[in-house]
C-alpha cells in the first residue's frame, strides 16, 4: 500500500521546550512511532525540522525551512511551540540567519505559516501567548492565531493549549487529521478540539464529591476539594481527570495540587494568584 506522507515543521518560539518534552513522553503511539512508523495505517509523519532533536545545525537547517516554504507550498503541517515575540519587529527572538540577517521567529512563523496546509499551536504560549505574554509582556508576545489575524494570514490554526500540553492531545489530533482529514476536527470557539477540551475539570474531578458535600481543604496538604486553596478546575476545560498524566501515573489534583487553569487563555494573569480562591464573579 502506498504510504501518504505528511511533512511536519516544528518551530520553537518564546517558550521552554516543555511541550516538546511532553511529546517525548507520549506512550501510544510513542515518539519512536511518530518519527519512524505509519502512525495510522497508510499515513506517516515526516518531521523535517525540529531544533531540539534534528541532526544538523547552522545555515543548512535554515535552508531546509526555506526550501519547504518554496517547494512544499500547501503540503506541510507547521507546528509552533512557544509564543511569538512581536515587539520591535520580533528582534527578541531569532532562530538563525539568512545571509548576514537574523531570521526572527515572527518572520519564520509568518513565512512558513502562509504556505502551510495547516498550523498547530502546541502549548498555551503558542495558542494564547501564555507566560511570555503575561503582564507586562516585555517582548510583545502573541499567540499564533492572534499573529495571523494581525498580519492577514488565513491558514487554519488548531490550538492545543496546556502548560505543557498533554502528549495525547497532540497524538490524538494527529490521528484525527490522518484518519479523517483536518476538516473533520470539531473545535470549540477557542480553536481547541472538543474531544480533549470539551469538559470542565470540575465535571470529572475525583474530588467533586467533596465539593458537593462542602468538604474543602483549608491549606495545601489537606484532603477535600481544593477550591479554597486556589483550584481553577471549575472553569478549566480539559480532560486531565479522565486521561491523567505521564502514562496515567498521576495528575495535578490527584497529587493534591490545585489546577492552575493552564489550558485557558487567561493563564497565567487571571488564573493567579495560584493559591487564592477565584470565583466566577472575579472572572467576569
Amino acid at each position, binding site marked *: 500500500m502506498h504510504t501518504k506522507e505528511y511533512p511536519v515543521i516544528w518551530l520553537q518560539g518564546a517558550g521552554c521546550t*516543555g511541550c516538546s518534552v511532553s511529546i517525548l513522553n507520549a*506512550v501510544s503511539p510513542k515518539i519512536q512511532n511518530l518519527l519512524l512508523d505509519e502512525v495510522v495505517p497508510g499515513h506517516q509523519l515526516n518531521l523535517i525540522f525540529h531544533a531540539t532533536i534534528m541532526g544538523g545545525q547552522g545555515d543548512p537547517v535554515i535552508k531546509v525551512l526555506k526550501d519547504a516554504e518554496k517547494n512544499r507550498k500547501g503540503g506541510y503541517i507547521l507546528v509552533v511551540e512557544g509564543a511569538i515575540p512581536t515587539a520591535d519587529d520580533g528582534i527578541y527572538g531569532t532562530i538563525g540567519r539568512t545571509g548576514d540577517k537574523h531570521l526572527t521567529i515572527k518572520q519564520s512563523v509568518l513565512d512558513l505559516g502562509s504556505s502551510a496546509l495547516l498550523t498547530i499551536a502546541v502549548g498555551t504560549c503558542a495558542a494564547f501567548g501564555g507566560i511570555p505574554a503575561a503582564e507586562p509582556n516585555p517582548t510583545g508576545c502573541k499567540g499564533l492565531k492572534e499573529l495571523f489575524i494581525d498580519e492577514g494570514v488565513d491558514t487554519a490554526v488548531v490550538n492545543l493549549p496546556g502548560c505543557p500540553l498533554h502528549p495525547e492531545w497532540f497524538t490524538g489530533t494527529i490521528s484525527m487529521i490522518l484518519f479523517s482529514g483536518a476538516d473533520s476536527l470539531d473545535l470549540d470557539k477557542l480553536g481547541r478540539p472538543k474531544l480533549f477540551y470539551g469538559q470542565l475539570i470540575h465535571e470529572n474531578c475525583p474530588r467533586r464529591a467533596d465539593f458537593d458535600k462542602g468538604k474543602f481543604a483549608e491549606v495545601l496538604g489537606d484532603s477535600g476539594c481544593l477550591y479554597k486553596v486556589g483550584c481553577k478546575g471549575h472553569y478549566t476545560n480539559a480532560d486531565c481527570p479522565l486521561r491523567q498524566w505521564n502514562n496515567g501515573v498521576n495528575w495535578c489534583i490527584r497529587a493534591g495540587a490545585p489546577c492552575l487553569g493552564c489550558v485557558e487563555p487567561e493563564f497565567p494573569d487571571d488564573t493567579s494568584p495560584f493559591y487564592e480562591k477565584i470565583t466566577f464573579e472575579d472572572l467576569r
Partner: protein
Amino acid sequence: MSKKIKIDPITRIEGHLAIEVVIDDGVVKEACSTGTLFRGFELILQGRDPRDANRLTQRICGVCPSSHATASALCIDDAFGLTDKIPDNAKLIRNLILGSNFLQSHILHFYHLAALDYVDAVSAVGDLALFVPRYEGDYRVPDEANAELVKHYLMALDIRRKCQEMLSIFGGKMPHNVGIVPGGVTEKPTEDKITNFLWRLNEIRDFVDNTYIPDVISVAKVYSDYFEIGKGCQRLLAYGAFDSSNGELFKPGVISEKLEHETFAPENITEDVKHSWYADSTSGKNPAQGQTKPEPKKQKAYSFLKSPRYKGKVFELGPLARMVSNYVQGHAKTKELVDSVLGEFDAGVDALYSVLGRHAARALEAKLVADVMVDWLQVLKPGEPAIVESHIPDQAEGIGLTEAPRGALGHWMTIKDKKIDRYQVITPTTWNASPKDDNDQPGPVEQAIIGTKVKDTDNPFEIVRIVRAFDPCLACSVHLLNAKGSELGVFKVV
C-alpha cells in the same frame, strides 16, 4: 588565513544559541557565544504573589523545571522563615523529584542531544529527513557498535520517559511538576508510592549501570582525542544540592585550577555587563543587589547573557564541577566511580577537563544520584507530615541555591507589601555560555573553544561537540534582571 564561521542555530540543545568563531591557520582564535531569545521572565514576576514564583519559574525551562521548582521553593522557604521547619519527608521527596529530573535530563542529553555528533544514525536507519542535512565525515564508531548505539538511542527514549513517570508519583506531572510547593510538598508519602517508585527506579538504574555508562565509555574509546579537546577554564563551582539528614549529596565548593578547594560563599558572585546589552554602570553587582539598565545600542556588546563571575574569575558549572568538588572533598562513592572510569583510560583527573570528561562526569553523576535515591526512599516516613503552613511576610528577602542538571542554580527574591518586588535567577548556562567580562576574560564555553584545531571548517565537529558537552540550556539563561521600575528598552540584537 582567517575564516569566520557562524553556527546559528546550534541545535540539539535547549533553546536558542548561536556560536561565532574566527579560525586562523586551522585554530580557533576567537569565539563568541550569543543567546538569541529574550523573554523577560523576571519582569513578569514582579508584583505577583511570592508563592507563584514556584509555579512560574518552572516554565523557564521544560527540560529542567524541577530545578527551578526546587530553587524557588528554597528561596520562598528562606524568605518566609521556614527553612529550619521543612519536614524531612518534604526534603526527601523534593530530592526524589529533582533526582528523577536529573536522570531524565542526563539520559536525554547523551543519547538525544549529543550522540548524533558521534554516532552515524543515517547509516543505521537511512536518510530520515530529521537527521539530514548534518555534518559529514568524522563518524568513527564501527558498524556493529554503531547499530547498537542507535538501538540504545531508541531505548533511551523509553527510559527517559519512565524517569518522568517515576517523578510524577510524587510530582503529579511532568514537565512542570506540582508536588514541590513553598513549605514542603503537596502529599505525604505512602508505602505503595514508595514501592512503586522503587521498582521504576530499579529499571532506570539497570539502564544507567549496564547501558548508559558502558556506552559513554565505548564512545570515548573511539574518540579518545576528545579527552584533549575543550579543556576550558579549569576553575569549577558548585552550590551543592540534595540535602538530607546525611548532609548534601553534592558538596558546595570552589575548585581552583590546581584542584584546591575553597568554601563557597554566594556574596562573592558578581555579574559583569561590559559585553552584554546593559549599562556599564550596573556592572559588578552581587545578584542580591543586581540592577539592570538595558542599553540597546551599546557598542561591542554581543549577548543577552550577563557574565557571572566568582571573585572576578571565570568558573565552569555542571556535572564536571560537582564530581570534582565531591572528589577533592573526599566523597568516597564519587572517588570510587571517577577513579574506576579514569582507570579504564589510564588517565588522571586532568582528563576530566575535556569534552569526554564532561560526558563521563554526567554519566557517573547519574549513577551517584540514582543509587542514593534508593536510600532516600527507605528513610521516608509513611503517613507523616510533608509540609508546613506558610504565610506571606510583608517584607523579606530570600535566596535559594541548588543544582540543576546543567550546573548550579540560584534564585534571589525581595518581597515588599506581600508581593514580589524583585526576583532574580542566575542559571548554570548563564555562567557557562557567558560573554567576556569586564576584564575581557572569555566565558567558559568560549574558553573551551578557543585554541581548538578545526580539521574541516565546512564540518566543524570539534566546535559543536565542545558546545554540546556543556549541555547548554538557553531558555534558562537569557533573562532581564529588573531594577525596580526600570522599563525594558529597545534592543537590537544585531
